[in-house]
């Protein structure tokens, strides 16, 4: 029995490694994908090995006194932030999909705009609005002689952080649930109505259960964003894990403890991803047929019309309009002082690193997504997992990993570089922007990849095969057939990544070179130095560039929807 088994095994191995298959499988796409994947995974492996180092003298102290605070702070904000974004995001998505009311068309895309506001910007703006010298208290003091209880107006605490994060992160849930509902059949809703359920009962008994995978997906993104957040928590003085990693590393210069904290965050992240998988459930609620009749919004009547508009206005107002108007006011006070050649430099820096990193991400995403769809096997499945892994790793953790990785490279190549040129310094790559761009790529590759992969999914493999049989190689097919057809997906991917990198703070703060500032770091620096007014112009630029891109994205998506004749024609 054993002999037969081992014989069979040997035969399988032979089948696996036919020279023929190796020859046909090694091409530009497979080799480049492999190289990129190795580069992406190396820093994480490198840092994991350092977990085996002995603990420093700080670690017992951190473990005994501080760790529990980090866990409670992070968990509280994650729990409430997750719950509130879920309620607001889902309810808005349903309202916009199922009903018509005044301004509902405008809200359809403008409710995405709070995504353009970085949480730390919203944080210091609301602090500026509410504090003693802020517009509200000043108005009350000067006009009504009311002196308010300061503790009621203090936003720099857990509740305040949850408020801010809910307002700027709910669009993740809103966007995902809305696009999910847009793909659902109207039959579902109408059947429920015909069976005698009220709109309210339909929402709770039909819409909510079928949207569960989308809701869970959106909330998971929100939670990952909260774990990643550094600027807001540091500004508010709340010790979450991201803040703790920074402090341990830079305050205590204790790298080993910082790595340990990073490892704990990663365990939390993995638990959340696992939970997400479990909660999405085994059931798949999506339709395979593309010939569905989408849900048609019905006109709301009477008081409901007003309430719906009011609800959307309140969220839009707090999430986007109020902070933007406040920032505009501050910008008017400070533009003479701020707008100078130096400032243009920051703008240029921002646009330059963001564009370079975004282009690299889009190219890598196309490379791996195309290779993974051509060769569907276990290896490409692993590639896909690794590609999207970075987005679930908080910025502070990636920063630690990438910096150590580059310092190690510099140390290990020092001798060689010395041999080539005597002027070589010990630190070479780790003092250049290569390091920052590399970190951006690891962190945001998943965003670009998801968008481009779904573009490939949409067109399927038929055109690719037809082109091959008409005599075109994989690469020629890519440029002549695939690329023109996935253009909308590439544009979406580019925009989503661009916005995220433009807003990014923790990676940029740690990995930037000396005296290198972007709009984000400058805004944060001003705010942190209690110069909130001076932070306004950088913040506004981030918001306006991102908002414009969200608008373009929305146009691109609805155009893509109308032009979606590819698959079935």
């Amino acid at each position, binding site marked *: 029995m054993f002999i037969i088994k081992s014989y069979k095994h040997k035969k399988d191995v032979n*089948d696996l490694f*036919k*020279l*023929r*298959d190796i*020859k*046909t499988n090694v091409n530009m796409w497979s080799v480049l994908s492999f190289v990129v994947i190795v580069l992406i995974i190396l820093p994480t492996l490198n840092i994991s090995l350092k977990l085996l180092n002995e603990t420093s003298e700080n670690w017992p102290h951190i473990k005994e006194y501080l760790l529990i605070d980090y866990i409670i702070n992070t968990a509280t904000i994650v729990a409430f932030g997750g719950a509130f974004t879920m309620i607001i995001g889902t309810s808005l998505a349903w309202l916009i999909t199922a009903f018509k009311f005044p301004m509902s068309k405008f809200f359809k895309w403008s409710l995405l705009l709070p995504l353009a506001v970085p949480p730390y910007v919203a944080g210091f703006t609301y602090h500026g609005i509410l504090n003693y010298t802020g517009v509200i208290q000043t108005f009350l003091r000067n006009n009504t002689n009311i002196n308010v209880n300061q503790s009621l107006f203090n936003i720099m605490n857990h509740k305040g952080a949850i408020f801010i994060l809910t307002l700027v992160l709910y669009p993740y849930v809103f966007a995902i649930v809305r696009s999910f509902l847009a793909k659902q059949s109207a039959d579902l809703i109408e059947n429920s109505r015909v069976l005698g359920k009220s709109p309210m009962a339909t929402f709770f008994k039909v819409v909510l259960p079928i949207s569960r995978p989308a809701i869970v997906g959106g909330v998971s993104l929100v939670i990952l964003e909260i774990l990643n957040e550094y600027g807001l928590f540091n500004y508010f003085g709340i010790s979450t894990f991201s803040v703790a990693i920074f402090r341990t590393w830079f305050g205590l210069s204790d790298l080993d403890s910082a790595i340990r904290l990073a490892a704990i965050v990663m365990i939390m992240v993995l638990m959340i991803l696992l939970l997400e998988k479990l909660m999405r459930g085994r059931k798949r609620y999506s339709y395979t047929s593309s010939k569905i009749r989408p849900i048609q919004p019905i006109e709301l009547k009477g008081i409901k019309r007003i309430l719906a508009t009011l609800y959307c206005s309140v969220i839009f107002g707090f999430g986007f309009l109020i902070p933007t108007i406040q920032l505009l006011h501050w910008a008017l006070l400070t533009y003479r002082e701020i707008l100078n050649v130096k400032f243009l430099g920051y703008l240029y820096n921002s646009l330059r690193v963001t564009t370079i990193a975004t282009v690299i991400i889009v190219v890598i995403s196309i490379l791996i997504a195309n290779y993974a769809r051509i060769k*569907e*096997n276990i290896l490409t499945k692993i590639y896909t997992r690794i590609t999207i892994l970075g987005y679930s790793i908080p910025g502070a953790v990636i920063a630690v990993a990438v910096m150590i990785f580059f310092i190690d490279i510099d140390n290990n190549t020092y001798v060689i570089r010395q041999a080539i040129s005597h002027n070589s310094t010990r630190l070479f790559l780790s003092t250049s922007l290569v390091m920052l761009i590399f970190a951006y790529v690891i962190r945001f590759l998943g965003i670009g990849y998801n968008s481009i992969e779904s573009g490939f999914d949409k067109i399927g493999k*038929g*055109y690719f*095969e*037809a*082109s*091959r*049989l*008409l*005599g*075109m*190689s994989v690469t020629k097919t890519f440029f*002549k*057939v695939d690329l*023109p*057809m996935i253009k909308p997906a590439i544009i979406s991917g580019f925009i989503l990544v661009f916005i995220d990198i433009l807003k990014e703070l923790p990676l940029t703060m740690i990995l930037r070179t000396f005296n290198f500032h972007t709009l984000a770091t400058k805004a944060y620096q001003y705010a942190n130095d209690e110069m909130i007014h001076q932070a306004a112009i950088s913040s506004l630029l981030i918001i306006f560039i991102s908002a414009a891109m969200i608008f373009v994205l929305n146009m691109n998506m609805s155009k893509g929807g109308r032009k979606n*004749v*590819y698959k*079935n*024609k």
Partner: protein
Amino acid sequence: MYIKISNLNFKYKNADKPTILDFTFNISKGEVVSIFGQSGSGKSTILRLLAGLETPKKGTIEIDDKVMVDDNVFVLPEKRGVGMVFQDYALFPHMTVEENIKFGLTKMSKSEKKIRVDEVLNLVGMKEFKSRYPHELSGGQQQRIALARAIAPKPSLLLLDEPFSNLDADLQWKIRQDLKEILEKAGITSIFVTHDKEDSLAIADKVVVLEKGEIIKIGKANQIFKDN
């Protein structure tokens, strides 16, 4: 023999049973062969193996005395000189009819391409649709263009995957006759896959009946379908 397929074996990754089992079959030049079978019999897989879109576990395929695949050789699909009409036609939506047909004509001069495009469009009777986009054509018209596109580079073998499945029933008889005529005129060795014995009877010189990946009958269409 012009096309020699011997001992072909194939299994999809997630399947527990082999999809194709010891498939051996030869075709002479210019013959029109139908592979007949129910869905899941592996008939489309044979086409994909011939085209080079799948790699067999075992077995060889030779076309015109050239080895396309065996244990040591695998000729990439674009180098096989095999044309295929896909079930859903796969006409490139961002190209006009003319551009679609020109796509496969790589080794020709501009004027040669123009002549060839007109030739094949004449053959399928679609000359006046040259500058249309695929979505501006009906299902039957799309199929003709897909056929013209596949024939244009003068493939040594033409494969047709369920050529009639996406068409209205009342059109089928007419299109069968048209296809038969076109294939005869073009004189290309062809294999088409179908689950409708009427198709086989109308067009094929020879029929291969496939069941669960194995050949159970080979012969002339009227002989094979005589009993039922």
